[in-house]
């Protein structure tokens, strides 16, 4: 398809050049014409059942569905012609003949295509007498995630095609015929064994399929949106974060053709809830075997600075720093410079749980990868792995156990959550006189061994970049300010460096990324703006060690 030369056609008098194999509907988007459609979806097969996208094409006696019409050289398309407009208006009227009066109680209201198209392309007065509607089953429980309302359905078959072509579960099907046609599962059984079924809620253009998790929690027009990346595996599916008043209500996959198309897995979809769980909201200290107490940042960082200065003066190699594949490139880069330039220790690693070896491995056929961290590839590109001959995480733990490590500085919680040998970690860390942890979430195992816990900002509370398994650098936006007193680790590291009379770059993720791209060959040539909403691949460069 891609080998054929692009073709030039005319749509409403505007000339447009589109790749061969594109349909007229997509070509129209290039000149700013949004053709209404229910059944067409960019990542599903062409169906042509809803007839909302009818356009006139010169030389064709009848109107043609633009979603099923490939562009041809010299084609002359009329979208705004009165007969096409009238046909689309009448088609909408057909689709609404049996539609229930549900808007006030429908969770889709506000992001419903029937509503939008009525405003944009309908605008007619109803001719349907009251009481003649064909009714179907409402509130059909389709398992853990989906609620089906059969009479709201416009039979576009997007969900049916999704289950057939993408997830392969064939869970949703058409049943019966004519005016009683409906979608559903065999005997209305709950859907099981489809880890991507949440996507049918997103692609349903009306309120037929709604999310059990999200429905009735929030009206969509109150939500604010930010663009981010899912952090639950190395794929880095692009997501839209919908939030209001400091609470995230849902993730919605954001179309990125190069990464996740329009999809995301249910596991990632649910992970928004984890962001708010058991947050560490202020720094905490435990000094000389005493009890934990809350501290302010100045007190906590004074303790950290004193311990680091003492250990550095005695022997820089008695300090070990563990970076995190759940932190952004910017934070890890600052952490690496903190370890190597400010502290002068060679003991730096990020490979705490062996996940970096699985980055490329797929867990299923579609999107999920076995590596549960979003940024192992970024850490590798930053060259955070110790140089040959130096100790890795296992060596650091061994040194801890041998009592050689005086300060262990840890970003993130993977040392406790990612490893199976929790006893060994606890045993080794018990020997370290000062363990500093940047933690966004409280964890009893950390309380048992740490001495300073620094409240870390979660991913949605800062901006930055991850590198996914494909080597694609992707931005995530700051959705909301950090919870309570939490601070992004990069800013804290720069603060501590300042107290140690050294200097590290500070600023927002965008500023740090600019500094990183200027300083690090792996990221050379990339710019924050250039990454855009969909990211850009890493320039092909061999990972090198940062710092001196």
């Amino acid at each position, binding site marked *: 398809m891609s080998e054929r030369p692009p073709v030039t056609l005319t749509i409403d008098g505007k000339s447009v050049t589109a790749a061969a194999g594109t349909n007229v509907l997509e070509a129209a988007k290039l000149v700013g014409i949004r053709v209404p459609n229910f059944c067409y979806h960019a990542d599903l097969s062409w169906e042509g059942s809803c007839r909302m996208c009818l356009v006139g094409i010169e030389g064709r006696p009848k109107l043609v569905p633009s979603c099923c019409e490939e562009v041809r050289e010299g084609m002359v398309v009329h979208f705004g012609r009165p007969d096409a407009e009238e046909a689309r208006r009448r088609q909408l009227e057909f689709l609404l003949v049996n539609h229930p*009066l549900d808007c006030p109680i429908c969770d889709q209201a506000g992001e419903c295509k029937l509503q939008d198209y009525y*405003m944009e392309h309908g605008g007619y007065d109803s001719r349907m007498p*009251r009481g003649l509607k064909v009714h179907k089953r409402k509130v059909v429980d389709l398992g853990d995630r989906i609620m089906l309302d059969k009479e709201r359905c416009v039979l576009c078959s997007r969900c049916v095609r999704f289950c057939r072509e993408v997830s392969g579960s064939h869970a949703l099907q058409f049943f019966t015929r004519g005016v009683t046609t409906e979608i559903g599962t065999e005997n209305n059984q709950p859907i099981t064994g489809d880890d991507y079924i949440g996507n049918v809620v997103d692609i349903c253009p009306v309120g037929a399929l709604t999310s059990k998790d999200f429905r009735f929690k929030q009206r969509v027009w109150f939500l604010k949106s930010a663009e981010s990346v899912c952090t639950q595996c190395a794929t880095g599916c692009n997501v839209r974060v919908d939030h209001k008043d400091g609470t995230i209500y849902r993730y919605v996959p954001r179309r990125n053709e190069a990464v996740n198309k329009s999809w995301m897995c249910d596991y990632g979809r649910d992970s928004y809830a984890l962001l708010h769980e058991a947050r560490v909201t202020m720094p905490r200290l435990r000094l000389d075997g005493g009890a934990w107490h809350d501290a302010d940042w100045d007190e906590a960082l004074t303790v950290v600075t004193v311990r680091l200065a003492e250990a550095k003066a005695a022997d820089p190699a008695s300090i070990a720093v563990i970076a995190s594949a759940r932190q952004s490139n910017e934070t890890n880069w600052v952490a690496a410079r903190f370890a190597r330039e400010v502290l002068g220790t060679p003991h730096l690693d990020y490979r705490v749980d062996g996940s970096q070896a699985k980055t490329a491995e797929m867990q299923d056929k579609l999107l999920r990868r076995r590596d549960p961290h979003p940024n192992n590839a970024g850490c590798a590109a930053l060259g955070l792995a110790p140089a040959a001959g130096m100790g890795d995480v296992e060596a650091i733990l061994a040194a801890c156990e041998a009592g050689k490590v005086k300060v262990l500085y840890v970003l993130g919680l993977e040392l406790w959550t990612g490893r199976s040998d929790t006893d060994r970690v606890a045993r080794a860390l018990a020997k370290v006189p000062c363990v500093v942890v940047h933690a966004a979430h409280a964890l009893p195992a950390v309380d048992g061994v740490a001495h300073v816990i620094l409240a870390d900002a979660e991913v949605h509370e800062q901006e930055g970049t991850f590198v996914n398994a494909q080597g694609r650098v992707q931005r995530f936006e700051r959705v909301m300010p950090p919870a309570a007193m939490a601070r992004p680790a990069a800013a804290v590291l720069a603060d501590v460096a300042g107290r140690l009379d050294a200097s590290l770059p500070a600023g927002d993720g965008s500023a740090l990324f600019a500094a990183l791209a200027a300083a690090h060959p792996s990221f050379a040539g990339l710019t924050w703006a250039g990454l855009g909403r969909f990211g850009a691949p890493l320039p092909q460069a061999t990972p090198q060690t940062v710092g001196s």
Partner: protein
Amino acid sequence: MSTLDTPRGSTAADPSKFWGEAKDAAALEADPTVRVLRAEHGAAMLGVEDFRGDLSVTIRPDDLLLVAQTLKIHPELRYDILADIAGLDNLLLDRTPRFHSVYHFYSTTRKKRVRVHVPLDDAKPAVDSLTPLYKSANWAEREAYDLFGFDFVNHPDLRRILTHEEFVGHPLRKDYPPDRRHMLSRSYSAYPGLEAEHEGRHTLVGADGIERVYVNLGPSHPATHGTLRIQALLDGEIIVDSKTEIGYLHRCFEKMAETHTYTQVFPFTDRLNYISAFNNNVGFAMAVEKLMQVDVPPRAIWIRTLLMEFNRIMDHMICIGTNLVDMGALTNFWYFFNPRERIYELIESTCGARLTVSYGRVGGVAQDIPDGFAEHARRVANEMPEFIAYVDKLATRNVIFQQRTRGTGVVNRENAISWGWSGPNGRASGLDVDLRRDAPYGGYDGLEFAVPVRTDGDTFSRYMVRMQEMHESLRIIHQLLDRGVPAGPHITRDHRVALPEKNRVYGNIEALMNHFKLIMHGFSPPVGEVYSYTETPTGELGFYLVSDGSGKPYRLKVRAPSFYTFAANDEMLRGQMVSDFVAILGTLNIIAGELDR
């Protein structure tokens, strides 16, 4: 399709045609303004557009002062009034550079308007001040400096005007969050030496070395009728210098409008000139109607015109009534508040509200008038002349009143034009402009009424103009009542903007969806910009409306007549008796809600 998918701005290849509506190029070039500017400043012209009948020219920033001079003095153009300056932040529009300073010029002789866009640098938005040419630029540029951070080079007094001195940032920039708040710690004085006023200082040594008594009038002074503050330096009883400070009632109406749907903006417009709230409703509705090309049914136009004239009478009554109270003539106040009550009853019968009515809607009015409305209106109109006559007899030829008002607070015609005055104040200074006559909108075409103009420009003239205008408004009302209420709907049937009737909402899905979308999302005008203006009781109320195609105004700039009237205050007060201050202020009819927005 969520609102996130709504395209913003135009993708047109020609950057000079941002709003995408091309008029016949030859006709556009033949326009005198375009022709003269091309001939005189060809190199400075970056683009010419005609959208919804508004001529808009984009000018290179370096040439603004010269272009403005040509616009002002060229015999074929003579744009003698700088009506308004609006900042515009293009951050969320598909357009560079980020900032535009937008000027609206008006020619009182040719009755023509032109809009000038000046693109400004993203990092350091700066452009020459127009204060050497137009006095109205003084406050207008201070406002753009305050709300957008534009630097106007050679402005004599560039400091914040609507927000507090301790405000951080520029609130109308698109990256300024609407809910950000600031801690404000203390009060400041425009006279640097007077900041310690709370320590009991009452005098100030001026630049000439003379120590003068300092009087602080307002912000809570009974005669300011609103929160205004004038700091005056006195030589005996003569005001030698003053500093007018406003912003005490600033709500950032324009920022609020950007976060609300078009219909939700109506209650905010009520609170501009709240003495005649309905006129603001109509002014705003007309801007949206111009942008969306909505036809308003004759019945709605009739209702609007009738109520606007009643509101004008009421507004003038309050102005004159309170003005006379301030001069000690309390009886007149009662004579004018009594008929005002009758008008309120009439307004109440239409929408249930009295002061802040929110009765206007895009495409018409919110509800139909009740049965017997015309008779009710006729009754009220017939009561008015008696009360006007009472005040006329008590005040107009009263010696004390004449002595206090004749020759005080004089603004001559030249200054009135330069300050951008309009409405009754402008007409009292010989500025023969009335938009109802000069640019007939709504129902004013075909109505017979005179436009009273006086030339003295003093407090007495302003009083007289208002007294005469009330009679003219009554003439208009009687003509409308004689014609009878037109049949038909009170609001357009256009599904884009008007709510369907409730019985249809409950009866069919189309009307339900229509209602739901209009209430929850509002309507989305096309991408574009318009300037729409009406003659309110205080003068030319203009709405400069920019739409990015979404359900909320991208930018809504109010050209508040009180703002431009009051800008002349310090100049007017110089050399006046301090006791005349209240009489002068009262006659300007400054409404703080409109002044500060």
